[in-house]
């Protein structure tokens, strides 16, 4: 009986083996880039992204389907990293999607479209419904749960 239980426990994980693809644990920066890319491509067909305050390493992980702009004025999606000292007021940003990973930047600035930060003990995305409206963006159904 006990041998049977030991065998059963040992084999438990095999039962669910095919649920996911086998994958190595992903790199944090790679995942951050994927999350931002995912949001950008959801709202803009071929986004041109300006990243403020990011290390070279992060930029490296952005999808090759996107354009990384060095000049904020040429971008249509601005991603402001926490601690970044770039002032977006120096850039024409009125009709651009501005995204951040800083809770306080998001809460304190009405121009920010959305943010990616931890709350409720998990990484989460918040999208400002007011800003989405003013930008004339339609929120896809699977993004409704992220609306602030």
């Amino acid at each position: 009986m006990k041998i049977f239980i030991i065998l059963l426990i040992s084999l438990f994980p095999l039962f669910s083996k095919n649920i996911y693809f086998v994958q190595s644990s992903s790199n944090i920066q790679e995942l951050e880039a994927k999350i931002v890319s995912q949001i950008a491509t959801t709202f803009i067909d071929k986004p041109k992204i300006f990243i403020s305050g990011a290390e070279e390493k992060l930029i490296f992980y952005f999808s090759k389907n996107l354009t990384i702009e060095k000049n904020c004025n040429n971008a249509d999606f601005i991603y402001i990293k926490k601690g970044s000292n770039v002032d977006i007021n120096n850039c024409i940003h009125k009709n651009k999607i501005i995204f951040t990973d800083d809770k306080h930047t998001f809460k304190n600035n009405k121009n920010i479209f959305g943010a990616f930060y931890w709350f409720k003990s998990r990484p989460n995305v918040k999208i400002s419904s007011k800003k989405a409206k003013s930008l004339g963006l339609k929120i896809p159904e699977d993004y409704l749960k992220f609306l602030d």
Partner: protein
Amino acid sequence: MKFFLVFLIFTKILFSQDLQLLLDKYKLATSNLISEKTKKESLGHIVTYTQQDLEMMNATVLKDVLKTLPKISMQTNFYGVSNLTYAGNPNSTSTSMRVYIDDQEVSSVQTLSPWLMFADYPLEHISHIEAYYGESTLLLGNEPAKLTVKLYTKKPYTINGSILKNSISSFGSYSSSIVVANELEESSLLLMLNSSKIDKPTFKLNNGAVENNSKNEYGYFAYRKDDYKLSGGFAQLKKDNFISLSTDSVLDSSQSSNKEYFLELAKSFNDSNGKIYLSFNQSTKKSFDKNEEGILLAPIIDFTSLNTTMPKEVNENLTLKKYDLGISNIFEFNDYSLFLAGAVKHKSYKTNSRDVVYLDNSTQNNVSLSNIKQETIYTLSSEHSYYLNDSNILIGNLKYDKYIKNNEFKDINFLTSRIGYISSINEKLNLKFFATKTFTPPSMMEIDYATKEDKDLKNEDKDILTFEVNYGDEEEKISLFLNYLNIKDMIILDTNKAGYINYNGNFDAKGFSLSYKKYFTPNNKIDLNYYSYINSINNYRSPRSGGTIRAYQIFHDFNFYEELIYKQKYKYDKQLKVKDSFNLSLGLNYKITRDLELNLKANNILDDDMDVVYTNFTDMSLFKLSNSTRSYTASIKWTF
């Protein structure tokens, strides 16, 4: 055409990642990264439980995790405390085992053991746990430790909200925890409060019943601003004293009330490689035992006139304090790094009262068990790491300790030395080797309970060799750990002399632990371990061999966890046979919504946990009680 459609759907699955799935992956990757960052390979041999492990294990209190550690048994000792012992060692109060909450040590000043107050420590605010084996962990604190358990609190940015968890368990136990943490503009704050009632079934012995119920309360806070951190907390515990020191194993009545407060101010510098800290702990211990048949408070008993010297009631009130000041820094050079640290620790032990009623009804107040009142420890420590190349590190440690107690006791001066070698032979194969010469000082409790002839116990001298080899990658890993230990002047409880003594004979021990870990997916893994231990006197007082199987799976909104803890049969003290035991637990988590989670756990389903051996001192007979009985827990966790 069909082939093209299938191909299109397949590539869409592969390349268009759902945002929620990405966020879940990000959480897992952060959990692994945070635990990886604190791991210090040069410290020695380590077992890590990541945030994901803790969540999947349904671990609510610290002992849920520690009971699965290789080479360790967690047994209920005669005070009713879940005490950790190394395989084969006696199940009394294990000294020189340390628990740190972040960088603050919370082990008892009196016993040098944390398990009375912290075995049931709640984990909702804990990010991950590291357990470091053996005395090779020189850098973690300024006192030697046989086992160091480090609890890292969650980074407030990973919470940004609150967690409320309520549990109910068999026998009327319950627990409530709340954690609030927020990242403020320039600072961060973490708060935790917990209240639990832990009831266990009453054991019926021939001459009565023994109880081991407790009421626990815990609190913790950490405020961080720039490089400063102010943290503190409290632990309060009211409990029955279980068997305690009753001669016939059954107390007539008992109650103990323990409180501990701790506070630390720390500043990090040099890119967090350096730290300066000042900390304070205070604990009070009030305990009352009554037993008409007698209480074996050996230090005050004259065994030739029991009636006038053996207590039947003991009522004690103790206050213990600890002040700790230290500084450490790491100096990095090209292929050499130097760690330097210095610390001063002062401990005081005050007996506010210890009132005793003897068997003949005579009374005595303020009875003293020994003259130990205080201890000051000065420590200087260094670690030299030479990077021979990218994959080979040679490590040398020197640590000088001076222990000064009050006048009646000799000072302890000890130079701890260690050499180590860590090598990554290739991407899959790495090994570690350490040779350490160290010591274990006697605890104040051991001095109290030392024989009347010699209260001034010497420190244990230890020579330790450890070797670890790991082979594998992120998906599969096999590890072998070998250790050899030689102890001179080992501090043991001598039942003939009724007290702790320094054992004159030579004692050595050898052990191994073999582990295998396989990830089927990042959320789906199995962990196997088997260990065994042998000592030169061929005498064991807890299981000397055992193993664990832990399996975790996530299936949509369900988590499954299976855990089997096996302890091999052995002969206690060469006298009493203790059978094989199979402690099987199953856990199930169901995410009702993304914010609400239901946890169900069945502990010791087979009702076959290990038997723990106790002594009935009236006739020196041995008897066994099961370490735990079958129990069920249901919890609901709300994050908001």
